[in-house]
């Protein structure tokens, strides 16, 4: 793994009002890399998907804790881990299929598809009743050089 340049950890309750807080926090942290508007918006959307999944699926019937760990590596790679200790996923491959949803109604079943296409890499580990960890990373274009190095 490349050299770690910066990181932040966030712990929050699974309240839906935190969806916007989480994506804005990630975006402001990443601002130090001088991302393009598109990169910033991609990351915000991916974080929003992962956090929303913790709220609507993992902690469906309860209020739980969501952990977000964001790291910046040399070369401009951003890695974001979103973890919950909720219900977990029985069949990860199936859950990641586009349009697959266990909630129906107002859910499209496209959260993982969005994370996958907006980030470079997506890994999901999960176990029923143990919880889920979503790890996503994206290499930013670093238009202005390796800014985070100086900070």
């Amino acid at each position, binding site marked *: 793994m490349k050299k770690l340049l910066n990181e932040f950890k966030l712990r929050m309750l699974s309240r*839906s*009002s935190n*969806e*916007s807080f989480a*994506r804005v926090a990630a975006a402001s942290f990443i601002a130090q890399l001088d991302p393009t508007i*598109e990169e910033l*918006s*991609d990351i*915000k*959307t991916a974080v*929003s*998907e992962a956090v*929303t999944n913790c*709220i*609507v699926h993992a902690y469906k019937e309860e209020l739980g804790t969501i952990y977000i760990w964001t790291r910046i590596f040399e070369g401009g790679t951003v890695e974001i881990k979103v973890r919950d200790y909720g219900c977990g996923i029985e069949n990860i491959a199936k859950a990641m299929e586009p349009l697959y949803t266990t909630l129906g*109604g*107002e*859910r*499209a079943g*496209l*959260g993982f*598809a*969005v994370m996958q*296409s*907006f980030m470079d890499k997506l890994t999901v580990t999960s176990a029923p009743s143990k919880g889920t960890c979503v790890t996503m990373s994206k290499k930013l274009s670093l238009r202005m050089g390796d800014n985070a190095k100086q900070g």
Partner: protein
Amino acid sequence: MSVRIENKGDVVTAYLEGELDHHNAKAIREDVDAALDRHSPGLLVLDFREITFMDSSGIGLVMGRYKKLQGTGAQIHITGTSPPIYKVMQIAGLSKLANIDKGGKTLEKTAE
């Protein structure tokens, strides 16, 4: 987050505003559905010009309205999608369910 709803003839236009995520989607959905129930339009226009953020909850909103209108013959037009919002809609293939205008164009012509 708010919705302004306009009803002209056969057309219901919903001017959506703010960030369309799971937290905000419920209120929007309830307002739009109330207008659909009251007016039974032939065309629903969803105007995204003032939407500043959208994730898959927005896709769910469009798909849900599509399902609700299915069988009534009513169409859905989506307008005013900025590039990031259009990008999310493309993943969903929403253009199969609704007419999507890219950019800030309005649909006044259709709406008349």
